[in-house]
Every structure is written in C-alpha cells, then in structure tokens.
C-alpha cells in the first residue's frame, strides 16, 4: 500500500486465527481468495487479548469485529472505527482519516469532508477559513 508508506504510516492486521492460517492465506493467489503479496504484518491474536483490550471482540462469536485504530507516533489513538462483520472497509476512507489525523498534529482542525490538498482550519484564525470556504 504505497499511499500509506508515502504518509509515513505503517499497517498491521490482526485476527484470532493462528499464524499458520495467516501464512496459508498470504501464500494463496488473490484470484483464489488469498492475499498473496501482502507486505504488512498479519498477527495472530489467538488468545484474544488484543481484541479484548481494544474492545472489538465479539464474545458471542469468539472473533473480532472489523475494528480499526489510527495510532499516532506518541502511541495515542486518534481514530477508532468498528464495523460489524459484513461491512468491509475502504483504503480511500482510511487514507482520508490518516490525512486528517496528521493535519491535526500541525495544530489544525479538519472540518467535514476534509481531504488532502483541501484547507484545514487554523483554530486561531477560523474566520478566514469561513470567509473563503463557506457559502
């Protein structure tokens, strides 16, 4: 995922499967349902500790919901998103959130529909943003 690398952002995936299952899946071609070529780590939360710690374990199903966390360089969680099992995610959606989180570290705030290249709001001079961007 070069778009994440360009932003200095790493990716780590995790499920409650064993590392052996992960290895089989990573080696399986994509046209057979595999994820061959995936370069980021896939971790095995076989004891379900991480899933519990992050609050994304379905205790009834014994597996993790589609939880996603954007963690900043200080180790603090900036974004939390949890989807039910059938609802997949989008890398564009996640990239937008990474962009907004990174922009926020420059002391800016990111209004609705903020995206890379758009102007964020400087909270010390919000009026100028509104005069340029609000209709």
């Amino acid at each position, binding site marked *: 995922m070069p778009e994440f690398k360009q932003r200095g952002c790493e990716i780590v995936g995790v499920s409650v499967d064993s590392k052996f299952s*992960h290895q089989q899946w990573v080696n399986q071609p994509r046209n057979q349902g595999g994820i061959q070529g995936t370069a980021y780590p896939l971790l095995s939360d076989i004891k379900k500790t*991480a899933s519990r710690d992050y609050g994304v374990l379905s205790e009834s199903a014994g597996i*993790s919901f589609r939880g996603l966390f954007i*963690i900043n360089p200080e180790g603090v969680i900036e974004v*939390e998103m949890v989807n039910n099992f059938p609802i997949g995610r989008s890398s564009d959606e*996640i990239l937008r959130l990474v962009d907004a989180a990174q922009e926020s570290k420059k002391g800016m705030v990111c209004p609705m529909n903020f995206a890379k290249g758009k102007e964020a709001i400087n909270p010390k001079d919000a009026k100028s943003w509104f005069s340029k961007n609000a209709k």
Partner: protein
Amino acid sequence: MTLVSQKAPDFKLDGVVNGEFKTVSLEEYKGKWLVFFFYPLDFTFV
C-alpha cells in the same frame, strides 16, 4: 467506552511478515503512524 485520545493498549503477537513467522509489538511502531486493524477470519475479506 472509546479508546480515542487514550494510549493504545500494548500488544506483542506472533504473526507473518512477508511469508515468515515473526513476533511484532506495538513498541516497534513508536515514532510512526500506524493503522492497526482487526478482521474476523482469514480467507474472508478484510
């Protein structure tokens, strides 16, 4: 309870990186942005 604005819970887990078995911890990502995501099961979609 949301974890937003909280310190991310530590993890140290076995896994697969580029086809090889490896142990990975949150600590290795200090100083970097990280997208840490959970998914239900292998051989489904992410």
